[in-house]
């Protein structure tokens, strides 16, 4: 098998594993379909914006939850809510699912539960970031050897 086909196979397998393991859902596939020759870096750009969103919002949540006595749960919820919107829009399924649980703890004004979710969402975001960076590196390797990125349904 030549290098291009090997890399393409690797890409497809990796992409499929991201879906299988729940890191991304169909919304992420839709983003791949939106990318074209006029916007060849669309998915990378969207992922970068998402990572920026995550970092900002996770910091906001952490700051709000630092207050032992008077946590502003509305403020925490506002950040979680925004992260839920971003993650569902990019197809970051595991991050989105943590946000759903997180919101319940905000509603219940349960600081311990919120702190656990904060830890979880930070973990899921880090995992996803690594996975997507690996995927994008594979894309670059394929393009560097003159191949085209496979479209995975």
């Amino acid at each position, binding site marked *: 098998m030549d290098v291009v086909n090997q890399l393409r196979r690797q890409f497809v397998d990796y992409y499929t594993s991201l879906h299988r393991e729940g890191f991304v859902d169909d*919304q992420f596939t839709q983003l791949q379909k*939106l990318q074209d020759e006029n916007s060849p870096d669309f998915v990378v750009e969207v992922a970068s*914006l998402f990572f920026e969103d995550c970092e900002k919002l996770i910091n906001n949540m952490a700051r709000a939850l630092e207050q032992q006595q008077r946590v502003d749960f509305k403020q925490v919820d506002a950040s979680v809510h925004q992260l839920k919107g971003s993650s569902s829009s990019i197809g970051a399924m595991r991050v989105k699912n943590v946000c759903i649980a997180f919101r319940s703890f905000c509603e219940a004004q349960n600081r311990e539960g919120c702190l656990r979710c904060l830890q979880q969402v930070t973990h899921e975001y880090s995992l996803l970031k690594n996975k997507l960076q690996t995927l994008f590196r594979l894309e670059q390797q394929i393009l560097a050897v003159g191949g085209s990125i496979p479209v995975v349904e």
Partner: protein
Amino acid sequence: MVLGKGASSSLSMNKVDGAEEMVDNSNNFTVLVADDDPLIQKLHEMHLKKFGLKVQVVENGKKAVDLCHFGATFNLILIDKEMPVMDGAEATKELQAMGVNSLIVGVTSRDSPYEKQAFMEAGLDYCFEKPLTADKINFLLQELNKNN
């Protein structure tokens, strides 16, 4: 999806996979997107442009209202709920009070029926939960084509 007061309940949605199978190929419709998140702005803009729609983006409700106040017209306004300066509900009320001739659609992360209904009561025609998808855009295009 939540329907507004004027919406028909006997709609048929074409289930399509992408922009290539859009209902009407002559999409000269203009769309205003109001959302403060650069990620959502970029996603909405790309989704809509794939359907051949002309898109303008603003980051809060006040800018949406000001644009319309100063004469800009749009067939469709996609509006988020939570935005700084002026939120989506307030902006929707002002746009309706101005009598804008646009389909005004909320696109929100709010998932409880109560929260969506509260947003609807500001005067939305429809309210969708994020993410914006090809199916939802096709549905809105059907509505725009009907109205035209």
